[in-house]
């Protein structure tokens, strides 16, 4: 009785969370309608799964950057770990179990392995602060990518063989098969990813992150972000909660990686997909959407992924325009004048609907609050 009562009241945060889920679901249905009506070019269709991947990555990075308040530039590294562990599992077990079950297990394995890497890297890295932490995460991201590039794993009747040199030094028997072939990566990963699964994973990532934020642990994490010394003085275990946020963020990035790996037939670790370019691109989504604003991350990731495709007609000027649009969006969204203007707009047009003062007090955006 009690529970239904509290659910019916729908606090502000619950309402805001529901809107976020609803946006994703409506976007999904719209795309499905467009697909059914044949209104989508094959190019756009090919972009749907990557879109889901970027949204998952942006949302997960926002947990580290916006909620924990630590700048991480190694997010693509965790995606890489998830992609390779998931793809490796799928490759090993191909044919031995139903496709959906195998993919589900691959997702879980990718998340767990990336989460473990998050803890291992988090232990040394989270002792640092600010710029120093950013640089060290960047270095760890690059190390992961480069290690994967020299990793050789093969399998024959004797079991698994590992090497960091080349595929010949695996000493495989004749019936053996090279599973991970260094810089050539993993080939022949089953194509399990789809737009529907991607959207389901987005919803799952949102569910985990939004519920975490609005729970006891999330409060502790944000308390550390706002004032570490005060958090410690009221008995919050700093190390535990920093690691928790960092590893959950890494695990969800790992899920994004598994989705990525199962969308391509060949998985290789290149600067383009798992290098710091990727980490920074995800960070751009997070910053543009608003640090700490989960819904903003989703919208920014979608817009900025679609933008280059929409600008394709401009050929050579495409990336130039992209950069200009990026600057313009950043200024429009986050310059103090623009924020002030938006607030005034909101007050003029929506003031009748809600009470004035407490509303503006909470809405005043400093960029860090959780919406």
């Amino acid at each position, binding site marked *: 009785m*009690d*529970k239904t009562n*509290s659910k019916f009241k729908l606090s*502000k945060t619950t309402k805001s969370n529901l809107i976020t889920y609803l946006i994703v679901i409506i976007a999904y249905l719209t795309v499905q309608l467009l697909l059914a009506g044949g209104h989508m070019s094959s190019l756009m269709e090919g972009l749907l799964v990557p879109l889901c991947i970027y949204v998952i990555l942006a949302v997960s990075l926002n947990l580290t950057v916006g909620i924990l308040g630590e700048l991480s530039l190694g997010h693509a590294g965790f995606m890489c770990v998830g992609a390779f562990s998931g793809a490796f599992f799928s490759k090993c077990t191909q044919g031995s179990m139903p496709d959906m079950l195998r993919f589900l297990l691959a997702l879980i394995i990718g998340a767990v392995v990336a989460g473990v890497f998050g803890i291992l890297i988090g232990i040394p890295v989270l002792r640092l602060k600010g710029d120093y932490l950013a640089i060290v995460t960047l270095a760890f991201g690059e190390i992961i990518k480069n290690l994967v590039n020299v990793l050789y794993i093969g399998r024959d009747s004797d079991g698994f063989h590992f090497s960091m040199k080349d595929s010949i030094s695996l000493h495989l028997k004749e019936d053996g098969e090279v599973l991970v072939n260094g810089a050539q990566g993993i080939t022949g990963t089953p194509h399990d990813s789809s737009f529907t699964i991607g959207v389901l994973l987005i919803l799952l990532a949102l*569910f*985990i992150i939004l*519920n*975490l934020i609005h*729970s*006891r*642990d*999330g*409060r*502790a994490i*944000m*308390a550390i*972000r*706002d*004032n570490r*010394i*005060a*958090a*410690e*003085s*009221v*008995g*919050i*275990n*700093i190390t535990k909660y920093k690691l*928790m946020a960092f590893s959950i963020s890494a695990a969800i990035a790992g899920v994004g990686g598994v989705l990525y790996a199962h969308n391509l037939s060949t998985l290789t670790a290149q600067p383009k997909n798992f290098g710091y370019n990727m980490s920074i691109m995800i960070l751009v989504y997070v910053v543009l959407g608003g640090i*700490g604003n989960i819904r903003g991350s989703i919208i920014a990731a979608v817009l900025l992924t679609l933008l280059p495709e929409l600008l394709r007609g401009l050929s050579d000027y495409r990336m130039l325009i992209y950069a200009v649009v990026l600057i313009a969006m950043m200024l429009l969204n986050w310059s103090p004048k623009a924020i002030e203007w938006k607030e005034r707009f909101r007050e003029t047009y929506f003031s009748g609907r809600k009470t004035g003062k*407490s509303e503006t*007090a*909470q809405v*005043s955006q*400093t960029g*860090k*609050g*959780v919406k």
Partner: protein
Amino acid sequence: MPLLEVKNLTISFGGLRAVDDFHLSIKKGQLYGLIGPNGAGKTTVFNLLTGVYKPDEGIITLDDKDITGLKTIEINKAGIARTFQNIRLFKELSVLDNVKVGLHNHHPYSTFEGIFRLPNYYKVEKEMNERAMELLKVFDLHQEANYLAANLPYGKQRKLEIARALATEPKLLLLDEPAAGMNPNETGELMDTIRFVREKFDMTVLLIEHDMKLVSGICEALTVLNFGRILTQGKTADVLNDPQVITAYLGE
């Protein structure tokens, strides 16, 4: 049997003895003041008591338990909570959430229960909300419960910090210059609040303060620090009339 017993507490930073041979004994329920000129080492004593610094020498006992050299969070669990000279709130959290962070260790549920919204989550969150609102009411902050802490006026921020500290259910409350930046009216109100907190929560309070009106108004006993050493110690009226103290504050 004193609640807090400090003996021979000493810490040096480089060559400077910031606190030298400090001792203190506070009875349960006492309102105790720590005063002294700027730079005398008062906040350093607080930082030693709360584990921010580890003492070079000395023993700190709280309620018969040795807490010397423990970490800040362990000391908080043992029963000391504090406020800060320059207010340290969780500015981007709501007023209510600030207090709920203080309740963190007393109302637990697991991460799993939190993420998957199991019945225990709703039960404990409800308890926390009720307890936090109770505390906010004591400090007349309940109407601002959903404001961001950063948007509170200064005096209320000070009160919120005390509410948050009390949420951790301490035995001893340390207040670092609670009246700093307040006008005489607000200071008067603060004095009432501190007295009220002692009655209502059966609290022992140790406070650092420069405002002599507040000190003489509510403190039962005082310790005066000067250059890291104890100048004098005793009942408030006696200490404030000590010529040594007057010299330390006003010069020769």
